[in-house]
């Protein structure tokens, strides 16, 4: 079963992250592309959170410790390479999760959207990895910084590890990038989001997301 709170929060937080690119993307075309990815995820977040309760209350009135998203999706946008790598690592996972649950309405519809997301991330990862010296340096740095957070994804979904490895490994080979080695650190450094223990990056994201609703509850356009 797809956990509506965990995956709904993943989608909501990643949608909010991607929306942060609007008016700031490298090109107008990329701006629209990222906004599209964000809106896909927002739609999935709404459908999933509605299963867990009142979507507005869940999105706007919970504190960071009540969110169940994984740490990966709350990591800052960074540069474009970091956004691409984060999207590759996460949507590679969400695609496999949706594909494994064809009986679920959100998953059945979302799997097509996610097929596009992970392919989009793939073609950009390949271009950045094999592009200029600088794009390669930035992509390698993003991969090193974000890779350790992927372990958390498979704590609840161990069966998805193998297909994810196959897909992401294939992309990295195509991009001529190496799988990074995870530096030694306390285990809690890279996990905890599913239990409400988040990085310092989630609170500012939620402050921006929730500001209007908290100041004017029930505000409508």
């Amino acid at each position, binding site marked *: 079963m797809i956990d509506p709170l965990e995956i709904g929060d993943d989608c909501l937080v990643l949608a909010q992250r991607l929306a942060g690119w609007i008016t700031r993307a490298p*090109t*107008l*075309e*990329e701006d*629209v*592309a990222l906004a*599209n990815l964000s809106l896909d995820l927002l739609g999935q977040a709404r459908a999933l959170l509605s299963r867990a309760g009142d979507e507005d209350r869940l999105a706007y009135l919970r504190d960071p410790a009540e969110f169940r998203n994984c740490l990966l999706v709350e990591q800052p946008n960074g540069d474009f390479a970091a956004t691409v790598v984060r999207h590759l690592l996460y949507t590679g996972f969400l695609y496999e999760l949706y594909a494994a649950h064809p009986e679920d309405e959100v998953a059945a519809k979302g799997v097509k959207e996610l097929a596009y997301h992970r392919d*989009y991330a793939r*073609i950009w990862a390949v*271009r950045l990895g094999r592009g200029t010296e600088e794009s390669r340096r930035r992509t390698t740095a993003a991969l090193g910084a974000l890779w350790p957070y992927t372990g958390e994804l498979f704590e609840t979904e161990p069966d998805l590890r193998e297909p994810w490895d196959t897909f992401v490994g294939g992309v990295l080979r195509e991009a001529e990038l190496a799988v990074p080695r995870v530096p030694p650190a306390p285990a809690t450094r890279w996990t905890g989001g599913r239990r409400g223990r988040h990085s310092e990056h989630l609170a500012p994201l939620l402050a921006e997301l929730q500001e209007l609703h908290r100041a004017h509850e029930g505000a409508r356009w």
Partner: protein
Amino acid sequence: MTLWEVFVRPRRGLSHVHAGSLHAADAELALRHARDLYTRRQEGVSIWVVPATAITASSPDEKDAFFDPAGGKPYRHPTFYELPDGVEHL
């Protein structure tokens, strides 16, 4: 970045129609940008992207020479044929 012209086919059986243009580094990205820019409200079932430089266009200066001579020649329309009885699907 290269300028690409985008052609979208709205439905099966119709032909691709020029929808607009966009900038992209290569064809694969141009196709994806075209999908996001021109088909997000279900406008199409097929997309072509063509480098704008690959298109040879008639010039507005040549408009008279190109198109005016076709005027006033109604016999070029297939409306003067008399159909024999029993011909269907015409």
